């Protein structure tokens, strides 16, 4: 094994009953390299990582790590860690109620007596060395998500790791936080750590990675130097087809709004207990608009206020010109408003219930407590939308938690489409799902708009919003700082508006 290789996996295969998750996959990681592992949902990325970290036993193949020419057999995550392979997951697996220092050292070493002072000093040193803006004595829960993520990484790194696996670390971070995380990754790279970076964000892969390995349907498609792989090619390799749909699809929609008709939804001075400043907002029939801004700028809070998800503290609302009151989600639902929440796991799916129950839930609630659908009716609704949206599930009885992220999201979309809303709010409908499904959802939004449904669309990916929206509302620090339409809708313009430089550059 050459000296600069820290990890080499050869011919890895893994089969689950009925599913071939990995088939003869090779993967090589060099010292001081950031290596993106990419592929659609279900391509085998997670399985590969779980085989590497000993969560699943492999069926076939060899794994070698730096410093030895022998094959290793990793049986548990603990063992992987001892060999210098550390993983930081998307969901933070630290204890929020402990301090940063405690989190750094808990569960390490066999000693029973703990010297908290040295531990704190050591932690302070590590934090300083890695430029992490946190104090050793701070309670972890009081740190931002990005910092928590960094602490998790620092913990992994401090355990003398050669291979660091980051499983979608950026999916809940905003741009500034991502930048900080990237700075940390570069720092680690300079120290010779090999980093495996799993992400759905193409831009991020191109920004920070040296090489990209693409998996599809459990097979290795190839490993490429980033500079040799244009984006379009990467996408087509991930999807397995020449993809001009993505580039062809652009926002051909102009304002087709009927004149003289009252807006579908109009709010004046709407504010909620979750902390949005009072704002005005309206949307016309068949319009697609979007809230944009950094994470935490108040875009989610704004749409939640529209739906009555948080307690509203003021404001007047008109729906189709008539004054109405929305004080809880059910009020909004009765007015034909649907809301797909940002956090699919926490707010969207009811994980133990079946796909069928999840799909009919909202319509069933609107129909009323005393009028349940018969099983046959429910089955028909579920079947119709499973076909319509191409939801991949074994049956309508399957618990929704055993579906992949993209399919869960489609089921939640189905839930709201089934209610035949006149106004649909989609908060990050494409987060954490594969490119193919993303495109499908974007197309669906445009189709709905053609059918006269109004849609408010929120996405962290600005390109996606530019493709789908005809009007963008820009937010900063929980208030609206600008509105962009037509030719003003460019990435640069949005950035400037967010940064508050519209006047100078306008």
């Amino acid at each position, binding site marked *: 094994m050459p000296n600069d290789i820290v990890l080499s996996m050869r011919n890895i295969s893994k089969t689950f009953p*009925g599913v071939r998750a990995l088939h003869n996959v090779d993967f090589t990681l060099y010292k001081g390299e950031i290596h993106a592992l990419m592929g659609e949902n279900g391509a085998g990325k997670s399985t590969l990582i779980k085989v590497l970290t000993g969560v699943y036993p492999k069926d076939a193949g060899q794994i070698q790590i730096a410093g030895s020419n022998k094959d290793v057999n990793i049986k548990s995550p603990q063992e992987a860690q001892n060999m210098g392979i550390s993983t930081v997951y998307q969901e933070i697996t630290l204890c929020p109620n402990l301090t940063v220092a405690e989190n750094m050292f808990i569960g390490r070493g066999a000693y029973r007596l703990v010297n908290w002072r040295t531990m704190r000093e050591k932690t302070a040193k590590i934090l300083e060395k890695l430029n992490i803006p946190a104090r050793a004595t701070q309670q972890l829960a009081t740190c931002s998500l990005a910092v928590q993520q960094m602490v998790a990484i620092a913990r992994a790194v401090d355990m003398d790791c050669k291979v660091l696996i980051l499983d979608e670390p950026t999916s809940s971070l905003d741009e500034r936080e991502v930048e900080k995380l990237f700075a940390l990754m570069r720092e680690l790279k300079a120290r010779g750590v090999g980093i495996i970076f799993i992400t759905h964000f193409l831009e991020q892969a191109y920004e920070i990675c040296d090489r990209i390995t693409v998996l599809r349907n459990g097979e290795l498609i190839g490993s490429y130097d980033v500079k040799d792989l244009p984006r379009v090619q990467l996408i087509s390799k991930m999807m397995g087809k020449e993809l001009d749909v993505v580039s062809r699809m652009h926002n051909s929609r102009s304002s087709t709004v009927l004149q003289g008709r009252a807006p579908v939804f109009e709010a004046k001075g709407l504010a909620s207990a979750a902390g949005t400043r009072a704002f005005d907002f309206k949307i016309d029939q068949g319009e697609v608009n979007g809230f944009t801004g950094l994470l935490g700028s108040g875009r989610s809070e704004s749409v939640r206020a529209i739906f009555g998800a948080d307690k509203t503290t003021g404001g007047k609302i008109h729906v189709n010109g008539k004054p109405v009151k929305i004080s809880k989600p059910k009020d909004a639902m009765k007015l034909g408003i649907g809301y797909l929440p940002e956090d699919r796991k926490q707010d969207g799916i009811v994980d133990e219930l079946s796909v069928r129950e999840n799909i009919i839930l909202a319509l069933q609630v609107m129909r009323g407590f005393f009028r349940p659908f018969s099983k046959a009716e429910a089955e028909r609704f579920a079947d119709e939308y499973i076909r319509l949206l191409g939801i991949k599930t074994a049956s309508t009885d399957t618990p929704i938690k*055993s579906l992949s992220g993209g399919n869960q999201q489609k089921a939640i979309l189905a*839930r709201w489409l089934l209610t035949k809303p006149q106004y649909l709010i989609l908060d990050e409908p494409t987060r954490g799902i594969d490119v193919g499904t993303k495109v499908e959802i974007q197309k669906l939004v445009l189709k709905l708009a053609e059918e006269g449904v109004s849609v408010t669309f929120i996405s962290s990916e600005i390109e996606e919003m530019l493709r789908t929206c005809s009007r963008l509302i820009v937010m900063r620090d929980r208030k609206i700082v600008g509105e962009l339409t037509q030719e003003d809708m460019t990435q640069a313009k949005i950035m400037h508006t967010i940064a508050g430089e519209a006047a100078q550059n306008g």
Partner: protein
Amino acid sequence: MAKWFKNLMKSQLVIPLFALLLLVVFNLFRDVGFFTLNITTNNDGNPVLTGNVISILNSASELAIIAIGMTLVTASSRGQDISVGAVAAIAGSVFVRVLRENSITWPIILLAFLGGCAAAVLCGTFNGTLVAGFRIQPMIATMILLTAGRPIAYWINGGATPTVSSPLLGYIGSFIPGIPIPTPILIVVAFSILVSLVLRLTNLGLYTQAVGINEKSARLNGINAFGMKILSFMMLGVCVSIAGCISVSRMGLINHETLLLDIEMDAILAVAIGGNALGGGKFSLTGSVIGAYIIQALTITLYAMKVSSTAVKAYKAIVIIAIVVLGSPVVQGYLLRLRDTLFQKKKKATEMQAYGD
């Protein structure tokens, strides 16, 4: 293999049904006469059914009814109500008080029952408000009435353990003339039918499970989570008052200290044995009712084996450990893997599972 059998094997009822079957088989081998049914004539000169099976079904009635309510509370609030015994004493005391102040006729009995029911539903509302409104852990919230309930029951009847006697109460507590089956069994059957009708004609099941599994999501879909939790505690109140009144009618007196003592523990066990997660969410009422009968069958079996009543609890504990461990996720997971390795070839690739995202 028949389809219904396959479905059964997958359902949570496998373990409780298996445990029940095991008890039956065990008793068959121990003493074939265990299951004999006799028709005898009771003191009033009516022909009645007797035998171990009847006494199991009969004496488990209160437990079965309370277990149904406990299941709903568990599902919606992710916790248990430990005040059911004490609240049953309150309901029973109100029942007795109303009966004693009037000459006992059917309308008065109904009125007395409704009075007890109202008291128990009020207690349920109190518990439910603490749990849903103030977000207190159910066990802590219901500890208040666990402590205060029996003293309140004592106060309702002015400190005595008054008796009530009327042939009409005997009809409720033991037999209706001409019907050889003990009335409590009939009440359980009627109540079960009523509850399953409610589940079929309303969205109680869907809403309760949605609230128990993911309260935030349930709320965003327009479900009143607060209301569903209180509703489940109120329904448990109804169950508890029925159980309390049956128990009073059986004995013809109310002893506020011992009426349905420790029933909360058996009710929670019945829920657990029935394969329901004590952490809330999906539930099966059938499972809990079977659980109640298992507990009672076990007790009667032990009595039939001449185990002293003090020692019965210890034996019960052993069997319950076995059932609960068998139903635990760890063992279930192991059994599933075992099944997968044994039947791997038969299993088709149709089962989609998200391994890879």
